């Protein structure tokens, strides 16, 4: 088991080998957070890489008494929000129409069946969910999307999100509320099978 604290300490002393290990440790989550905010794999990879390069030059400012993840994810989230803002200033891509035609009453894609699922099934479920999320989250503002990703996907407490996004908790709650409302509307409109499931439930 790699000791994260000692890697951070060594990387602060400009130990590149320790920094590479730290990158290995954090790359999945950095990529995932960036991807869920910007919705594009290549962009998310670029953002994660730039975030690590920024981390290298600012790591000395990290105080050991802080928690590392929120401190680092502040860099990732801000880069992702900026990226999304710039991209949206350009020509807007219209939301793609969904490709699959779910039969009425069919089990919605992305929902595990009651049977024990294999690892491959679980991965396919996530791929499907990722598509659905990406599809309906285009309506959100960069801040709403970042707040929703951190809260509902990453499970970060509101207080910490406020610190990551350098804003007030009440603003985060507003972003979350608007994001939830927009996503529910879009899910109901584009993927009504998930709501049929709710009605059945």
């Amino acid at each position, binding site marked *: 088991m790699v000791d994260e604290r000692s890697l951070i300490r060594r990387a602060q002393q400009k130990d590149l080998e320790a920094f590479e290990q730290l*990158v290995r440790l954090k790359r999945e989550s950095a990529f995932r957070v960036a991807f869920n905010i910007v919705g594009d794999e290549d962009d998310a990879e670029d953002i994660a890489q730039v975030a690590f*390069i920024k981390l290298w*030059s600012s790591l000395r400012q990290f105080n050991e008494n802080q928690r590392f993840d929120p401190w680092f994810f502040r860099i990732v989230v801000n880069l992702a929000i900026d990226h999304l803002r710039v991209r949206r200033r350009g020509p807007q891509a219209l939301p793609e129409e969904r490709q699959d035609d779910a039969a009425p009453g069919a089990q919605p894609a992305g929902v595990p069946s009651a049977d024990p699922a294999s690892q491959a099934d679980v991965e396919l479920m996530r791929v499907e969910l990722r598509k659905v999320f990406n599809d309906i989250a285009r309506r959100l503002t960069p801040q709403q999307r970042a707040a929703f990703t951190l809260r509902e996907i990453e499970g970060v407490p509101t207080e910490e999100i406020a610190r990551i996004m350098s804003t007030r908790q009440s603003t985060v709650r507003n972003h979350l509320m608007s994001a939830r409302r927009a996503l529910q509307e879009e899910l109901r409109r584009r993927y009504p099978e998930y709501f049929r499931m709710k009605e059945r439930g």
Partner: protein
Amino acid sequence: MGGVPTDLFDCARVNSYLEAYLLDRVPPPERRGMRLHIHRCPACFAKVTARDPLQLFAPLADQKRGEPGSGPQVWESFWDDIAEGVRKEESLGAMPRLVRWVSARPALLAAAAAAVIVAVGVVWLRPAGELRGPEPPAIPVMAGAGVPPAPESGGMPLPPVVEAVRTPDARPVTVYSMAYEVPGAGSTQAQLVLIVDGGLEL
């Protein structure tokens, strides 16, 4: 993000906290434990998403990069690009702060170079005479100028006026101007004007 407690929740326990979970009233450590169970248990997942369809997306927290089965090779060049960026940062770090700041802004550097070229071009192409301003007006020479009245003639010196001005070619000069009233000569005044280089104090 962060350590996740495992095996702390079973279906019964998730059920009893479900309401609080959906209202976001479960403290973070327990919430993480609940999420872990919910993502892996189809029955609890169905229950949660039936109440709140947006909980569908919570399992995205466990997604790995790439398509299913793509493995760790998706990260192949990830570190190489970071290492390259780090090397660049380090070489920039060795430069003085101003150079670093400018180097990071190539557009600014190009704009500054263009401005210098234009300025040099303008100066070089203009005839030398045009750089000089118009000739200053000649100072009128008054009758009796340069001959201060003798004190015995009863001349009354007025307070001197001192002005710092610049010549058209931007040289600072000081103008000392002193007028004398000559008694018995009506409004006749004698005026003494001294124009002195700005570097000299009188």
